[in-house]
């Protein structure tokens, strides 16, 4: 564990130096802070606007922060040849990959936590000094959604270049979010459409399940047991990430650097 921790710590240190990540964080916080402005323009739905804009901003900024942080973690090590000085030491490749993943993910966690704190603080002051636990749950689900995305991005980074990885990861995230399309395809009479729907449903990660903004914002679309739903999604994120990382480790173990 000491080796994984050392690599993760080093990765956080390097990742936090990347200006692009800070730019996305500033954009995220800026969008969250626009909530009260838009709420003012729409007094009837000010609470809904504030909540939906806040969660969407965290999701969007989190998405870009996760991808730009994780796509470079391994390629930069190879390009700068720093990987030679690490893997020539008594470091197993799985330790290197897990260290990189944990470091990348902790960086994403710091960012989402920062945006989440700003968002919840804004709600606290806008909604009469009342803490909104359902919004905190929304931020937490975004956090686990990004954990899954980080694992997928790390997986792609073991087999492809950062540019291709960006589009692949972004694409998987988009398709995984189109749950309405997946539902339509799986119920389609057309065999091909049905097959595609089944593939997306069973193979690609169901990112859409983590987006509970609508259900949180509109209480009429309530989930019977919210806690069970959240636990189920957290478990899904952890299990899916573990499988993806296991495959990434197998591929990276055979990769020449």
């Amino acid at each position, binding site marked *: 564990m000491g080796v994984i921790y*050392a690599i993760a710590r080093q990765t956080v240190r390097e990742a936090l130096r990347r200006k692009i990540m800070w730019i996305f964080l500033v954009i995220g916080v800026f969008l969250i802070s626009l909530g009260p402005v838009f709420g003012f323009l729409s007094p009837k739905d000010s609470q809904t606007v504030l909540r939906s804009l806040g969660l969407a901003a965290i999701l969007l900024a989190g998405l870009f922060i996760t991808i730009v942080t994780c796509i470079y973690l391994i390629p930069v090590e190879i390009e*700068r040849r720093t990987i*030679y000085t690490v*893997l*020539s*030491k008594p*470091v197993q490749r799985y330790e290197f990959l897990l260290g990189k993943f944990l470091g990348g993910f902790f960086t994403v966690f710091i960012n989402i936590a920062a945006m989440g704190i700003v968002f919840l603080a804004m709600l606290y002051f806008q909604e009469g000094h009342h803490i909104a636990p359902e919004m905190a749950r929304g931020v937490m689900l975004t956090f686990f959604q990004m954990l899954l995305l980080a694992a997928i991005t790390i997986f792609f980074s073991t087999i492809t270049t950062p540019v291709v990885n960006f589009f692949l990861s972004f694409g998987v995230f988009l398709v995984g979010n189109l749950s309405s399309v997946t539902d339509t395809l799986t119920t389609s009479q057309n065999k091909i459409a049905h097959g595609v729907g089944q593939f997306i449903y069973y193979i690609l990660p169901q990112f859409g399940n983590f987006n509970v903004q609508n259900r949180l914002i509109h209480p009429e679309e309530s989930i019977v047991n919210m806690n069970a739903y959240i636990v189920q999604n957290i478990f899904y994120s952890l299990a899916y990430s573990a499988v993806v990382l296991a495959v990434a480790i197998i591929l990276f173990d*055979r990769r020449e*650097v």
Partner: protein
Amino acid sequence: MATAISIQGLTKKYVDVWAKQEVIAVNNLNLEVQEGEIFGFLGRNGAGKTTTIKMLLGLIFPTAGDATLLGKPMGDNVVKSMISYLPEETYFYDSMSAWDLLDFYGRLFRIPGAERQRRIKLSLEKVRLQPEAWRRNIRGYSKGMRQRTGIAQALINDPKVLFLDEPTSGLDPIAHAELRDIVASLKDEGKTVFLSSHQLADVELICSRVAIIHRGKLLRTGQITDLLAGERTEIVVKGAGLSNGTLQNLRAITPDIEPLEELQALKLFSEDDNQTSAVIDLVRNAKGSVISVVPHKRTLEQVFVETVRKEEGL
């Protein structure tokens, strides 16, 4: 003396799927390096030196063949704790100071805290990095300071075998000489150094044995003293009587003849005393004059160039 590195039939082929071509980077390499020696691994750019080192370190995988380091299979984690590597043109994590960098690498070797601190200090002192730079970001380091840091990271685990890839390239003369001396001093500590370098004068000075590799193939290996054996003698001769016939006779003694047009003279190289005497006698008999006779010690550069050119058919 025990064998530190033993390479048997090591081969690395790359296949270009699109061009349907096979490139042999290392071709059936057999080599043995003894413990405690500084071994020079020489070759042109792209000869297969770095590929060989990377295979030995488990960074890439051989197509065929095998190797052992300190008696254990290459890539083994136990072996990795006893060796170290300085790659060519390394960019370190430059947001770190030399101290933090060595601390990071020390953690990868699982060296306990207090011992790690002691070794960091020892390594930085050994490479003579100024103490005021120890806690400064590597980003602001000169090339020489970076190379010193690179060697220091290779010393952090007190390794038995060091792989150094061009450790002195691109340095100013003072830094160059200092780093060369540091590498040379490793031998006194009983360490084995596998040195890949284009600085043939350095190699000649500090290595006991060398291997010359070309297009992945081992051309020559041996003790430096053996490779450099046999002085050459440069003889400059001049004279109106040096007819074509004399010239042919001279060529029969030594084919190594260059015209010196400015002096209207000839420069010949003889390989031994007999050749030298024969040339001088022939020139005098032809009423020519011998202007100079200068013995030349062979250099590793000459040996290297001759070996490679011979292989290339030049």
